[in-house]
């Protein structure tokens, strides 16, 4: 082989190998291409399926969206960039009343209400200008039928590269809400109007009390502007006198209490007005207090009226008081000298006088007595006219009452040598309840007249029992005389004030002509009617019937007291203290007492009396009321409270006013007598008190510890009450004595004393009362015999109590 041949051979082999390689590559590439092609085909297929799917889905969405837009309850529409409708949904047609054909192509203001057009246009041009993507606006449209409909509208601007491509709007019919809002505003305005037009000033404060809101009504009320009020503390406008009340109310409000109260507030003018405030707290939704509201009503006028009324009332009271004072004064001024005249002429008549002197003196005495009666009558009739006379019903003893009448009238009757007969139905009881004082006045008035107008015959006081009704007795009182009688034509007028049967009567008999008028009124006050029968020159009978409640009898002492009135006593052992500043009055009393052979001492005022009683024991004190240095009332209080003395005190008063006598008895005096006094009256009063005191004095020897007079007084004749109380004491004291014997604890002992103190106050002596106080204050700790004494006295007291109970059960 040639080189060339091998060379070609080699080249051929290389070529062959390269070709083989190229073929292989080609084969591989072909396969790859095929595979890729296959893959591509598959993908293409998939893509087509997906496209169909997508198209289907899009269709569904569009259908759904269109159905949503078509079925929407809101208006939905689209506008082109110029603002013209390109699409409207059926709701747009339904609400506006226009068809789509009518709307499409029109400007968006097509159915906007003429009133709102300008506003709507400017709102949306602003939206575009400001490039706000979406907005909300409320406006009215006018429907095709002419109805006004409110829309609340959202507008969305749609942008594309070149700028605004259109607008989508969704609007809702808000007419109902708008109407509701309007009605709420209207009602709010209405109520505000009402509140503002009312006279109430309304103020709101926060929890710190600072003003947060002031309604104009409050400004009208006070004159401050809203600005001047808000942020201020209400105390700045409050009268200092009202601070305390306001604070109290604030506390109350904290406790959620609403209240009404009256305070004074300062107006802008500086003037204060009275307001009534109704304050109430108000709360947030969680129930926390956020402040309070106060409603203020001007009550200045009302307050002024109240004040005026109060002043007028006070004035009226003062004037009636001053009138009463005037009468008291006049009566005092007249009675004091009259007292002297009557008393001294009485005394003068007992001296040796020649017949002429005796006659003159007698006449002076008689005139003075008449004058006195007149003064009393005038006082009484004034009081009757003013309805000031009151009836004071109390238990009294008929026998005592008749004895007093007899004692008072006996002298006059004897002077005229007329028998004064008193006759009492045997069925009439002795203890009744009535106004003894007034009853006495009536009988004395009638009997005085009877004696006055009778010269021959007799005067008789007759008491008859008319009927019995349960515990009431109807008693007929008659005052019968055999005097000159009353003419039939005068009989009707006889009870009139200042009327006497004839003008002649006064000349012959004197008198004020008031006696019968007063008697008539008094009988009426006591519940009866006074009547008269008369035959001229044969006599008259005045009679009346009154109901009396029977008082329960006091068993004790009744007999004794009856007898004491008439039995003359030896008074030489009796010692009387005269307390009187007027020297003439002093003389009259001194002389009278000297004639009665009574020991007496005279002091000039209350203070001297107190000093005297400290040093010396008296049986009776005759106490004048009006005195310099210390008056009678103060002196009596001193004697009773400081000196703890029970000496009987008779008030000597120039004031015939019942109120004064009441006052005397209240401070602890035992009786009262009006100046100028009647000898007999004074005598019987002294006798009464002395005999009572003697009973006590006598028993002093045995020293009983038990005194039941206080209880009896309380009982008003109800003996069962006294017995009940004694039983209670008997039992409680037994218990306390038992405890006392068992304990050594001084607190317990003091407590027992404290508890038993009131009973001892009612049942026992002053000494015992003082002792129980000492025990209560534990004085026995340093002074042990005090306790022994107390226990022994308590035992005695209990024993006496038991004895009394045994005797009376």
């Amino acid at each position, binding site marked *: 082989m040639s080189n060339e041949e091998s060379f070609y051979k080699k080249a051929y082999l290389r070529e062959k190998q390269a070709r083989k390689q190229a073929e292989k590559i080609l084969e591989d590439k072909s396969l790859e291409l095929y595979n890729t092609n296959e893959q591509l085909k598959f993908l293409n297929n998939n893509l087509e399926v997906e496209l169909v799917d997508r198209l289907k889905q899009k269709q569904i969405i569009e259908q759904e969206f269109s159905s949503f837009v078509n079925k929407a309850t809101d208006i939905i529409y689209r506008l082109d960039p110029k603002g013209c409708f390109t699409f409207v949904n059926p709701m747009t047609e339904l609400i506006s009343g226009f068809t789509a054909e009518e709307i499409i192509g029109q400007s968006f203001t097509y159915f906007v209400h003429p009133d709102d057009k300008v506003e709507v246009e400017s709102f949306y041009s602003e939206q575009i200008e400001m490039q706000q993507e979406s907005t909300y606006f409320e406006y009215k449209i006018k429907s095709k039928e002419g109805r006004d409909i409110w829309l609340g509208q959202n507008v969305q601007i749609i942008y594309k590269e070149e700028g605004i491509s259109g607008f989508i709007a969704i609007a809702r019919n808000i007419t109902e809400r708008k109407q509701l809002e309007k009605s709420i505003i209207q009602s709010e305005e209405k109520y505000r109007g009402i509140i503002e037009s009312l006279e109430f000033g309304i103020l709101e404060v926060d929890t710190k009390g600072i003003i947060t809101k002031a309604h104009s009504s409050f400004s009208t009320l006070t004159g401050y502007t809203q600005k001047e009020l808000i942020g201020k503390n209400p105390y700045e406008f409050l009268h200092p006198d009202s601070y305390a009340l306001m604070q109290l109310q604030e506390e109350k409000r904290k406790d959620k209490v609403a209240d*009404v109260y009256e305070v004074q507030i300062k107006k802008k003018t500086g003037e204060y007005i009275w307001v009534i405030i109704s304050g109430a707290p108000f709360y947030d939704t969680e129930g926390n207090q956020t402040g309070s509201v106060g409603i203020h009503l001007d009550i200045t006028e009302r307050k002024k009226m109240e004040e005026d009324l109060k002043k007028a009332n006070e004035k009226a009271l003062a004037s009636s008081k001053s009138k009463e004072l005037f009468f008291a004064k006049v009566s005092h001024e007249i009675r004091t000298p009259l007292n002297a005249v009557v008393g001294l002429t009485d005394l003068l008549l007992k001296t040796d006088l020649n017949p002429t002197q005796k006659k003159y003196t007698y006449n002076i005495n008689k005139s003075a007595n008449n004058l006195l009666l007149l003064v009393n009558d005038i006082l009484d009739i004034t009081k009757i006219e003013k309805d000031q006379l009151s009836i004071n019903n109390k238990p009294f003893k008929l026998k005592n009452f008749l004895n007093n009448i007899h004692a008072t009238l006996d002298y006059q009757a004897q002077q005229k040598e007329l028998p004064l007969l008193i006759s009492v139905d045997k069925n009439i009881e002795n203890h009744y309840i009535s106004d003894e004082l007034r009853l006495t006045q009536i009988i004395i008035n009638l009997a005085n007249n009877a004696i006055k107008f009778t010269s021959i015959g007799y005067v008789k006081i007759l008491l008859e029992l008319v009927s019995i009704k349960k515990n009431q007795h109807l008693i007929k009182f008659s005052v019968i005389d055999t005097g000159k009688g009353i003419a039939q034509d005068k009989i009707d007028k006889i009870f009139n004030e200042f009327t006497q049967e004839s003008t002649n009567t006064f000349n012959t008999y004197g008198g004020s002509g008031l006696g019968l008028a007063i008697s008539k009124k008094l009988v009426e006050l006591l519940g009866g009617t006074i009547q008269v029968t008369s035959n001229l020159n044969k006599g008259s009978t005045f009679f009346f019937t009154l109901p009396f409640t029977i008082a329960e009898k006091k068993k004790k002492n009744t007999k004794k007291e009856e007898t004491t009135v008439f039995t003359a006593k030896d008074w030489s052992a009796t010692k009387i203290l005269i307390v009187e500043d007027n020297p003439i009055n002093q003389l009259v009393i001194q002389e009278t007492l000297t004639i009665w052979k009574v020991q007496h001492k005279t002091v000039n005022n209350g203070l001297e009396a107190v000093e005297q009683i400290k040093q010396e024991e008296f049986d009776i004190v005759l106490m004048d009321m009006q005195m310099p240095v210390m008056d009678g009332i103060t002196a009596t209080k001193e004697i009773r409270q400081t000196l703890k003395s029970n000496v009987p005190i008779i008030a000597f008063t120039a004031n015939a006013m019942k109120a004064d006598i009441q006052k005397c008895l209240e401070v602890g005096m035992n009786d009262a007598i009006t100046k100028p006094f009647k000898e007999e009256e004074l005598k019987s009063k002294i006798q009464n008190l002395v005999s009572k005191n003697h009973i006590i004095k006598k028993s002093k020897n045995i020293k009983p510890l038990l005194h039941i007079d206080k209880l009896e007084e309380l009982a008003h004749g109800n003996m069962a009450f006294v017995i009940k*109380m004694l039983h209670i*004491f008997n039992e*409680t004291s037994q218990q306390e004595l038992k405890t006392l014997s068992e304990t050594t604890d001084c607190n317990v002992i003091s407590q027992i004393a404290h*508890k*038993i*103190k*009131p*009973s001892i106050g009612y049942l026992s002596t002053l000494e015992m009362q003082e002792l129980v106080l000492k025990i209560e204050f534990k004085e026995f700790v340093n002074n042990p015999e005090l306790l022994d004494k107390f226990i022994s006295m308590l035992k005695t007291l209990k024993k006496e109590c038991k004895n009394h109970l045994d005797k009376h059960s």
Partner: protein
Amino acid sequence: MMIKNIFIVDDDIFYANILENKIEAVGSYQIEKFHTGQDCINNAHKQPDIIFLDHFLGDTNGFEVLKDLKSTYPDIHVLMLSGQEELQIAVKTLKYGATDYLIKNSDDTPEKLLQIINDCGQLNKLKTQKKKKRGLLNFIL
């Protein structure tokens, strides 16, 4: 408002009876007496118009009874009874709602009792009027 029902609460039976007698003398009232604070509280549901309450009771302090009563029945008038020596204590009770106090054997005169009872009646009347006034105002607003 008339005063009708009255309680007297005092461990001193004697004084309770005395006071009952004195009250009966000034008017006709329905009076009940109790001798312990507990008895009074147990019966307070009867709502008397007035309770005369001793400040010193055997079983308990009158103060406690007063506080107890006023917390449940603020409208009942409680009148504290006291001796002259304990006047200071009695005055203090006013702070705890007592209407008034009465000094035994000194204040219990018919006039004073009648005045106190009438005052309570008057107070009740004013209270009712105030309630009415407030009701009227609430009704206006």
